[in-house]
């Protein structure tokens, strides 16, 4: 029976592991290595110690980009989770009650289908659509909807609001996914719990805060981490939608865009790698912090 076990194991593992090591492991290791060099992408690699990180510390654009990432990091999860939770609750428990049993509103299936669809569109295509939705003249959807007497709103071309527009697009695309995720979670909460609470005279609002949220806490945590990671990316939306890519005047620059431009446009691969290393530690810190801060006694039904 032992016969042929090791040839089989090696045969099954050799290709995936080789591919993974060549394109993923090697690339990540080199990113750490290159962050200590001044490599331009061509020629010799010279080590310069922590100079890249020192330069980063004094780079105003870096701090500006980091602020924008933090803006997304705070608001994207808060708004998306809140909206998705309310919608999922309405879909599942918002309807009338029959015999003390709470149920979803009419047409909840149809709603769920519509809400989820943006998830299937590539963020790049969503960005192209919303660049036009936010168009700064009458050809833009929103400006077209405003009364003719209004001056056109600038949206993305307005330094004060550009980042908010980016945030709105990310929320628009994400909500549907979390509605479905939370709905699945709510579906697994036993109906008896709602019934019992309803018998005790609990209103829907009490049900939402006292029953639904505590029982979904694990799923909410996962959602929070996912959305936080998305907030550290946002490349497609910023690269496609924003004026002057990251503008106007740096108003929408984010770390991922800085990495891209330093790698492919400014020939500063070493510097870009240093930003990448910072991004890695930021993501890791965020995930660890979220899981730690939001830890609760698990409430198993």
């Amino acid at each position, binding site marked *: 029976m032992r016969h*042929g076990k090791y040839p089989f194991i090696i045969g099954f593992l050799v290709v995936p592991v080789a591919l993974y090591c060549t394109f993923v492991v090697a690339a990540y290791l080199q990113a750490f290595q290159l962050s200590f060099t001044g490599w331009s992408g061509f020629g010799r690699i010279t080590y310069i110690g922590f100079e890249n990180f020192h330069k980063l510390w004094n780079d105003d654009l870096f701090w500006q980009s980091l602020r924008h990432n933090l803006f997304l990091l705070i608001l994207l999860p808060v708004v998306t989770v809140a909206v998705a939770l309310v919608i999922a609750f309405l879909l599942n428990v918002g309807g009338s009650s029959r015999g003390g049993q709470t149920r979803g509103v009419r047409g909840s299936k149809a709603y769920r289908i519509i809400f989820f669809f943006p998830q299937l569109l590539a963020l790049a295509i969503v960005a192209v659509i919303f660049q036009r939705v936010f168009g700064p003249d*009458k050809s833009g959807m929103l400006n077209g909807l405003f009364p003719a007497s209004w001056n056109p709103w600038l949206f993305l071309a307005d330094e004060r609001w550009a980042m908010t527009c980016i945030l709105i697009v990310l929320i628009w695309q994400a909500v549907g996914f979390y509605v479905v995720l939370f709905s699945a979670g709510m579906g697994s909460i036993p109906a008896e719990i709602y019934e019992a609470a309803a018998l005790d005279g609990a209103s829907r609002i009490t049900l939402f805060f006292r029953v639904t949220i505590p029982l979904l806490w694990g799923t909410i945590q996962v959602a929070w981490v996912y959305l936080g990671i998305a907030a550290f990316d946002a490349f497609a939306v910023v690269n496609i939608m924003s004026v002057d890519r990251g503008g106007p005047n740096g108003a929408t620059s984010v770390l991922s865009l800085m990495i891209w431009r330093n790698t492919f446009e400014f020939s500063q691969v070493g510097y870009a790698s240093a930003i990448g290393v910072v991004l890695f530690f930021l993501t890791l810190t965020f995930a660890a912090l979220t899981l730690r801060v939001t830890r609760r006694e698990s409430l198993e039904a």
Partner: protein
Amino acid sequence: MTNLTSVPGADVVPTPAAKSAGRKPAVKREVNALTGMAHIGLILWAIATAGPLIWVVLASFKSNTEIFLGKPFALPEHWSFKTYADAWTEAHVGRYFVNSVIVVILSTAGTMVLGSMAAYVLARYRFWGNRFIYYLFVSGLAFPTFMALGPLFYILKGMGLLGTYTGLILVYIAYSLPFTVFFLAAFFKTLPYEIEEAATVDGASHTRKFFQIMMPMARSGLVSITIFNIVGQWNQYLLPLAIITGPGTDNKLLLTQGIAKISVSAGYHAEWSTLFAALTLSILPMIIVYAIFQRQIQAGLTAGAVK
């Protein structure tokens, strides 16, 4: 609206709720008000979701002049299909679409074959280095792809794979492996051992057991993760943008890159109608696929988060 949803049955059906009959009217009024508000909220979000998409489709039939008139949701005065001809022939949406389909089919197939092989061995065989390889794969989940961008570009350049689908597909597979292995390994672990042992007694080889016994048993997990990978790879923008570049790649762009490129060139002339036609052409197939497989797609995409 509220009348439709208030169910009179509550008074007739004998239920435990009968106990609270005293407060019934108040509770019911609260529920009706809430149901009404729920519908308003849900309809608003449905409009916010579908509105921009409907607007894109409507605008794709309008002339450029009409688009600039405002009134975004007015029906087009003359339904023009010329924009679609332009999008197809001049802007090459069709070609970008086919490119994306080819790449995603090959890369998802590769991801599933290699991912399930690795996951199976790691989940069900004990050997030296098993845990190390498993954690090597799973640790890939913690790194942002952005970090690897520069080095990845030069690795591909060194291998002469820049601007080729071979390079892009290999990279897609490699970057999809961490999650695929993580998910499938957990799945293979839950499958029963008895059937496998019976097959071993009957003299089935390891390879045969994998293909004829384990793969069919793992079908539901495989379907979920296949959908997850198809959608994820179809929506990729960053990797093709970095890899499909250089001279002679104009015909090789994927849909996401292609649409972004059409958008930029439309912006130079403020000539939006072709862009809207191109967008419609790229959204429409997704709507059709979604209409057919929406249950499986929702389940597949959320499977990863629920574990």
